[in-house]
């Protein structure tokens, strides 16, 4: 049986547009304009979920983003499914499906509900305490807990929607479109400030838009009527942009805010396709006006969490805005006048209000008098001591409250009801304010945290600034706008406001029951099931800092970040510890204000756009020839070129042999290239490399090693002198950007007197590295007019030449130990160059090889790779590369560090070669090296840095760093692995052609 609790047509609900949707498998109807929460309430559905720890039945509690209970899964079992959505924020559309979370097998019958009866065993810190038990015990719980844990389900297929990011700049950003936000935006825009007004709801006007209380008048109109006219006038104001369904998630320093604009979530599936679902606005505002309003507080009393117990203000909104009665027999429980406004709203619509229970002794405001006239029974100085009804509230028990508010007396009265509105006063929504770094101050009289110390150009207006009465709001808003925007007049100057609102309030953080606290369940954090009892236990166990109590009890740590109960937690701690709340401080509100989807966070940066990648000019050829690729920094580099179904190992063995036996070709375009010019270029190189550069002749190349100031190897590469004041430096592929940055740093900050100019030209050149005994013949075929004799073009020298009409720079340098050339052409000719080399090399069986073979060939020669054989703790001496460190130069980057006591230690890890006793065993890179097997604890001497099977030597080779390795030549060591110990011998790291015969061979 479904009931209809729709009471009166509302202008925000389109009753001609009937919408059907499913909740927990059952079909319901609502109207266009409903949220899932309002539509469910109209169908008399309160029970929507189970609490996290005790699995207690929970109902819709609020009408907004602060909702702690109605946390649901949208469109389950589809690729658009989304967990942890607040039913109060979902606008319904035809075909919407939603289901409860945190219940198994169903919300009506939930097996975890047994936790409720076991609750004495789930005190504060339960999880921390449980984890202290033997781990094996925990595993037994795991299956059960995973099934009943309430975090929803993530989609299992990829998200079909598009997400977007946009940068937004404005003079004034107004957050919140209630009465304050609208008036602020209007006056800002009219005074030529480029203004952006955002609100998380789909309608402007906040709570004032349905404020029809006869005792509040603005210019003789109800606030609702008056505000509608103001909103109407917003249209057509220049400089004003309004974004609804836009929730500010984060407020960072320097007025940088992130907001999520929701574009299609309220649309039927067929209208969602190919549209942007959500857009992240990255807003930089000169001034921010926070008009985020206030959140109503609940009251903390025994069993205050049953379905049917709601915020009083939410009941009013459902009645006035959505035209829905939340119950047939309504009761209110309050400490201030707000509940009377809600009660009056229901009364005016003919909805039954049974009673109002007020913990105050009396109130004489007009609205209270009005309620008295209606005959609704008011219980002054009374408190609720218990509630009843498992899946839906059916009664409350009340007792007389003692004068000091700490106990109850007299006899118990039971009042039958199906809905209870609680009104505990209002907390300014200062979440965004504190995110910005601004500081709060506790107002001991109003019992609220108020903005106090701004750190950026911002103001808080309306109730988030501490003004709760309509006359105060308008008056203070007017002052603040004039001050902050430096304007002389506003449209607020002559507004006439009448109000009967009073701030009378009796604040009791934890209301007493006739039962002792240990026997009651006064929930402070509904989502995380933290009770006042847990907080008191934490204090008894010695926790004092509010941040510690929060973590220990998990208060405020749910997806709602405790928007409702945090104040009460602080209040209970302050009362129990006997300190003032102002001294206690508050916990930190962290972004996002409400959860964001991953889609919104990543925007367009998905799939191919997840990260930038760079391709060389020859890339197409590699793809066409079925190369496998590896990522090196941002580059896609050809890794190896398998043919006829070869494995990686087979391909690399073949490529490595071919490069030494005849000819190989490598795409070396990714190496970093920095063009260095200026009259001090030589001096500059002298200072940044360990070796000397002044005497390098024009047209010659030299290998250089660059250190950090701490003496550790930073990068390496060959630099060529192109002219008197002109060099081209090559860097490692991955190090290019950092090397340029480091060189610029020194030039700008330490040596500004040097006349040197640096330009990154990495992308300007394509480089083919041709190597092997037949490389010379191949190059000869391509460039007929260049004398390639050793006399004219020796190793480590440079020539400019033409291939046809293409200019090229050729360096005779080698990273393989073979006779080889690096041919550089303008990037756009890269593929042509490569094809020409392949054509010319065909008769020599020229073999393209990738990075893996390059690594293997250089390892055979014992050449290091910075970043593989070094790790930021290796000096050139550790690498046994003393020969490259100039003894004559007075200074270079890192020189002084090479003779610090620590860098001169004999027992530093040093680079050595390792040979396995069994030549067929290839060591694992990263494997540890020891000298004793039966030691405990075993002493680690070092680790393997590079390891390959060498096809040219027909045995396994490895490079390693070993403590004191320099003096261990020939020593037997061990590499212990999981299943075996591998015997190794320390060797010369140059395994192949130790006398460089091949490099110097006459070809």
């Amino acid at each position: 049986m479904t009931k209809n609790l729709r009471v009166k047509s509302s202008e925000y609900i389109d009753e001609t547009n009937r919408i059907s949707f499913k909740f927990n498998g059952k079909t319901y109807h609502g109207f266009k304009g409903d949220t899932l929460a309002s539509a469910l309430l109209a169908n008399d559905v309160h029970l929507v979920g189970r609490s996290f720890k005790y699995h207690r039945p929970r109902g819709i509690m609020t009408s907004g983003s602060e909702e702690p209970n109605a946390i649901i899964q949208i469109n389950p079992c589809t690729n658009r499914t989304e967990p942890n959505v607040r039913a109060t924020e979902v606008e319904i559309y035809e075909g919407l499906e939603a289901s409860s979370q945190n219940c198994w097998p169903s919300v009506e019958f939930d097996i975890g509900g047994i936790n409720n009866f076991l609750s004495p065993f789930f005190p504060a810190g339960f999880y921390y305490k449980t984890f202290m038990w033997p781990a094996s015990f925990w595993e037994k719980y795991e299956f059960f807990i995973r099934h009943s844990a309430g975090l929803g389900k993530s989609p299992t297929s990829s998200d079909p929607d598009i997400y977007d990011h946009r940068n937004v700049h404005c003079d004034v950003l107004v957050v919140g479109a209630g009465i304050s936000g609208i008036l602020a935006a209007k006056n800002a825009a009219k005074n030529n400030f480029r203004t952006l007004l955002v609100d998380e709801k789909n309608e402007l006007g906040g709570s004032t838009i349905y404020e029809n209380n006869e005792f509040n008048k603005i210019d003789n109109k109800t606030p609702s009527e008056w505000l509608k006219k103001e909103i109407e006038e917003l249209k057509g104001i220049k400089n004003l942009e309004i974004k609804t369904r836009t929730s500010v998630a984060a407020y960072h320093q320097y007025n940088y805010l992130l907001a999520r604009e929701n574009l299609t979530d309220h649309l039927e599936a067929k209208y969602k396709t190919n549209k942007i679902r959500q857009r992240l606005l990255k807003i930089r505002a000169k001034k921010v006006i926070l008009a985020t309003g206030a959140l109503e507080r609940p009251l903390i009393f025994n069993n205050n969490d049953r379905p049917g117990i709601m915020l009083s203000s939410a009941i009013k909104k459902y009645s006035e805005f959505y035209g829905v009665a939340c119950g047939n027999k309504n009761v209110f429980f309050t400490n201030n006048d707000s509940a009377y406004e809600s009660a009056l709203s229901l009364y005016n619509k003919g909805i039954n209000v049974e009673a109002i229970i007020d913990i105050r002794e009396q109130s004489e405001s007009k609205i209270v008098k009005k309620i008295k006239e209606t005959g609704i029974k008011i219980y002054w100085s009374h408190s609720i001591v218990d509630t009843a009804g498992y899946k839906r509230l059916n009664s409350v028990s009340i007792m007389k409250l003692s004068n000091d508010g700490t106990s109850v007396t007299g006899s118990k009265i039971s009042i039958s009801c199906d809905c209870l509105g609680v009104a505990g006063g209002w907390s300014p929504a200062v979440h965004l304010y504190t995110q910005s770094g601004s500081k709060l101050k506790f107002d001991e009289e109003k019992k609220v945290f108020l903005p106090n110390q701004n750190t950026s150009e911002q103001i808080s207006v309306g109730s988030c600034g501490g003004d709760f009465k309509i006359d105060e709001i308008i008056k203070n808003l007017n002052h603040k706008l004039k001050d902050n925007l430096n304007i002389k007049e506003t449209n607020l100057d002559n507004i006439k406001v009448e109000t009967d609102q009073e701030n009378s309030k009796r604040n009791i953080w934890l209301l007493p029951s006739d039962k002792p606290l240990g026997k009651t369940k006064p929930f402070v954090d509904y989502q995380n099931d933290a009770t006042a009892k847990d907080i008191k236990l934490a204090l008894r166990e010695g926790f004092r800092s509010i941040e510690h109590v929060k973590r220990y009890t998990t208060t405020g740590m749910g997806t709602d970040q405790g928007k409702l109960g945090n104040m009460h937690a602080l209040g209970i701690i302050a009362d129990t510890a006997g300190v003032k709340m102002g001294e206690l401080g508050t916990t930190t509100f962290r972004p996002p204000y409400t959860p964001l989807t991953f889609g919104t966070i990543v925007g367009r940066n998905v799939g191919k756009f997840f990260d930038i990648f760079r391709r060389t000019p020859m890339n197409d050829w590699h793809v066409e020839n079925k190369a496998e690729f590896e990522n090196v920094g941002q580059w896609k580099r050809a890794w190896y070129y398998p043919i006829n179904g070869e494995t990686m190992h087979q391909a690399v063995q073949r490529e490595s042999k071919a490069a030494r036996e005849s000819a190989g070709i490598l795409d070396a375009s990714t190496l970093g290239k920095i063009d260095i010019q200026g009259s001090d270029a030589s001096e500059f190189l002298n200072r940044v490399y360990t070796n000397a550069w002044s005497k390098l002749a024009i047209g010659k190349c030299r290998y250089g090693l660059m250190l950090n100031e701490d003496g550790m190897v930073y990068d390496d590469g060959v630099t060529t002198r192109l002219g008197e004041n002109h060099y081209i430096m090559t860097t490692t592929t991955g190090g290019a950007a950092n090397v340029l940055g480091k060189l610029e740093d020194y030039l700008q900050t330490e040596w500004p007197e040097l006349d040197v100019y640096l330009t990154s030209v990495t992308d300007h050149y394509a480089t083919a590295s041709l190597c092997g005994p037949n490389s010379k013949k191949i190059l000869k075929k391509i460039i007929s007019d260049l004398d390639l004799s050793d006399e004219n073009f020796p190793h480590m020298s440079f020539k400019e030449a033409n291939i046809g009409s293409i200019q090229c720079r050729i360096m005779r340098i080698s990273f393989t130990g073979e006779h080889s050339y690096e041919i550089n052409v303008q990037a756009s000719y890269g593929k042509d160059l490569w094809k020409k080399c392949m054509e010319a090399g065909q008769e020599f069986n020229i073999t393209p090889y990738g990075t893996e073979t390059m690594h293997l060939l250089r390892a055979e020669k014992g050449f290091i790779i910075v970043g593989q054989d070094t790790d930021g703790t290796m000096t050139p001496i550790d690498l046994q590369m003393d020969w490259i460190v100039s003894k004559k130069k007075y200074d270079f980057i890192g020189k002084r560090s090479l003779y610090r006591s620590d860098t001169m230690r004999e027992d530093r890890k040093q680079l050595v070669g390792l040979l396995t006793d069994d030549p067929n065993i290839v060591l694992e890179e990263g494997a540890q090296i020891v000298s004793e097997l039966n030691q405990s604890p075993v002493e680690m001497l070092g680790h393997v840095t590079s390891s390959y099977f060498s096809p040219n030597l027909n045995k396994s080779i490895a490079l390693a760093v070993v403590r004191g390795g320099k003096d261990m030549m020939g020593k037997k060591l061990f590499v212990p692995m999981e299943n075996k110990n591998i015997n190794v011998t320390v060797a010369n790291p140059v395994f192949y052609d130790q006398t460089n015969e091949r490099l110097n061979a006459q070809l």
Partner: protein
Amino acid sequence: MFLINCPYCGERDQQEFKAGGEAHIERPKQPTELSDDEWAEYLFMRKNIKGVQFERWNHAHGCRKWFNMVRDTSNDEIKAIYKMGEKPPAQ
């Protein structure tokens, strides 16, 4: 996310910049004359102040110029920005 006023380009978003540690630590002109301790002082010792701190920043995704910033690390207020080689402001 700071808004940084590059002395060469004007106000830009923080993501265009790279922080470069404490400012006004000059590389010794004659490192070889220094004891291990003196060199270590230059090499390793950096302040980490809660409060006003002098820092180096680089407009890495812009003009690539280095400059100095005075920042209060307790609230991230940027108090001054000045070019390399210029004297820090008195206050």
